């Protein structure tokens, strides 16, 4: 692929890091393969079932180590350091809380609601802790990442932002995206060097406009189909015999299903387009140590088509092609992510020694949050 610049060979020694005389962007690559990951994936699932779920913590470690380790920048992969035990403990705590919460909600609603409010109160703190854990167990060239964001920022980025976005029917979503990217981008550290980003709202809105157009157009089409069918249903009511003859029952059910799938598809596609656009804007506005620039140049169309075809491929093969789909996506995203080092980066030191607790990270995992680097 022409876009991928040749990478220096492994083991080039002390001078390779950051020295880019050409001044071009160094892109990430992905060296893993679908078949190799398939083995890891199926064994993960099998052992998770056999061990009644306990292995899932180690499964996560192996999965992440595979994806991080094969994400290569300048001939060197990233590393994932969390241990199965850390993750298991985090999961057990979160699981116990969720069980307690659900049981209480069912049987003693007031206590349940109280527990829910409590977790809502602690959520920003948990999110910040989770991001910190994820960052601290990630390293590149033996230097760990770190995250120094506080609960207040997490509250604005992940609670206030989405609520405002939903309340304004997505019109203020770019603002929410800006908050969350600023929160992550400005609090992320690599060793003692800081990342920073300040994506412009205008640029995000440009990207947002395309998604908004997709949603509006899609809803218009659904509205049109529904309108056509209102005519059909009315006819059917006026001539019940006719309706019986053409099997109205079946077609009505089918229509509901089609409508549901269409809505799901429209919002899904719009979200994917938006996500790729925002990522490009936010990453390309980011720098490390005030001078090394980051780059993201995902094609919105290509990113969306890969995500959609991956989902279809996974469904059609009853999940069996999922490993190939996952590898395909990571490869595409990596190849469209890069860094341009200004001069020699020199020796960077890790500022941290310990990882802290996995509870926050596991909460994000179970609640469906997913932040990757």
């Amino acid at each position: 692929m022409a876009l991928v610049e040749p990478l220096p060979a492994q083991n080039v020694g002390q001078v390779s890091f950051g020295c880019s005389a050409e001044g071009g962007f160094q892109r990430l690559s992905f060296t893993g393969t679908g078949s190799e990951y398939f083995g890891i994936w199926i064994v993960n699932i099998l052992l998770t079932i056999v061990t009644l779920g306990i292995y899932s913590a180690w499964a996560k470690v192996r999965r992440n180590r595979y994806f991080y380790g094969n994400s290569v920048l300048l001939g060197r992969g990233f590393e994932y350091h969390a241990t199965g035990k850390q993750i298991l403990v985090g999961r057990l705590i979160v699981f116990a809380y969720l069980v307690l919460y659900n049981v209480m909600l069912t049987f003693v609603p007031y206590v349940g609601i109280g527990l829910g409010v409590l977790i809502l109160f602690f959520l920003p703190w948990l999110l910040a802790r989770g991001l910190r854990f994820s960052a601290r167990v990630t390293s590149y060239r033996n230097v760990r990442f770190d995250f120094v964001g506080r609960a207040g920022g997490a509250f604005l980025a992940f609670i206030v932002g989405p609520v405002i976005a939903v309340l304004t029917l997505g019109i203020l979503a770019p603002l929410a995206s800006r908050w969350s990217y600023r929160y992550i981008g400005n609090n992320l550290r690599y060793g003692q060097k800081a990342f920073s980003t300040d994506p412009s709202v205008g640029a995000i809105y440009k990207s947002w406009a395309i998604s908004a157009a997709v949603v509006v157009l899609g809803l218009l089409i659904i509205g049109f189909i529904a309108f056509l069918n209102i005519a059909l249903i009315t006819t059917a009511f006026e001539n019940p015999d006719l309706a019986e003859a053409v099997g109205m029952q079946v077609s009505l059910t089918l229509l509901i299903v089609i409508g549901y799938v269409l809505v799901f598809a429209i919002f899904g596609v719009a979200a994917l387009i938006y996500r790729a656009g925002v990522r490009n804007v936010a990453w390309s506005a980011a720098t490390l140590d005030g001078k090394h620039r980051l780059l993201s140049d995902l094609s919105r169309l290509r990113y969306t088509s890969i995500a959609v075809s991956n989902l279809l491929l996974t469904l059609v093969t009853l999940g069996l092609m999922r490993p190939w789909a996952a590898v395909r996506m990571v490869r595409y995203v990596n190849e469209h992510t890069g860094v341009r080092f200004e001069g020699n980066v020199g020796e960077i030191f890790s500022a941290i020694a310990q990882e802290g607790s996995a509870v926050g990270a596991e909460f994000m995992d179970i609640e469906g949050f997913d932040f990757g680097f």
Partner: protein
Amino acid sequence: MDSDSSAFARGEWHPAGSSRSVVAGLSEVGERVVACDETGAELAGGNFSAIRISARVGRIPRRVTFPDGSLFETNDNDAIDRFLARNGRAGAGTVHWLERFHPRLVAFVAATILLGALVYRYALPALVEVAVAVTPPILPRIMSVSTLETLDKTLLGESKLDEARRARILDGFQRIAALSAAGEGGYTLNFREGGPLGPNAFALPDGTLILTDELVELAGSDTEMIVGVLAHEIGHVEHKHSLRQIYRAAGVAALIMLVAGDIGSGAEDILVEGGGLLALSYSRSAEAEADRHSVELMMKAGLDPAAIARFFELLETKLEDRSETSIFSTHPGTPERRKAILDLIAEHAGESIK
């Protein structure tokens, strides 16, 4: 010193927490494992028991962490495995061996599907039964009290039925309640105005039954029909359907979450929705079970077991409810249920003739 040539793996060495890297080799010197640079000078070292070696995953580099926090990294995975085997840790690579792309993975796929199906078919229902069995009766009671309280505050209104009508229904209700496993004391009947719930009757898990005025009006003078519906609701309580359903839903969600990290978010959403549809099909079988219970209780009480069938007929004619069973409905199609009940009665009649 010739430790360089004795190196069994080549790679790079990093001082603790530093991005600086030095081309190095790993070798064994007596009991110790040492990393040496190209000139043979020792960079770091430690006893075998004191160093940490990362597990093998795919072809990603292995990490050897020394007690001083420095790190040796190598792509020579096989050499590290041989070194581990020499030191009595041959089993360390078992998971990696299992994961290799190999025909045996076909067997793993089959085993995974089979185990998944077994878990869903047997382990999940068994766990649900265990959970139902260990649930102390106080929990359904608390749950029911608060549910009724919430319903009274939000949807239900006070009943406007006259005393005589109530007494007739209560009388019939007590007759069948007395014949059920929990006895007459196990059930209490509440009259309410249904409001948005319309003609309805439902049971809370502790045996609290709620009957709406609208349903009584729909039944007209046929009190027996109402009793038949109440017998159906008693069936739900006796079989602990609501508890089972809660535990089932929780179990399915937990199962999906367990492997969720590996299936992708879009596929996960679809699975969760699919789980919801399956839960509906479970509630259909619960309805059928309650219908059967109604027939049996009514027969025992010497009442007409077809009363509930008359109720379904009423639903069909008055409310034009001719829905067929589909995967989207919580209840079986009304005509189908009516037929199942009449079949059951015919079966019972056949038995009693013999």
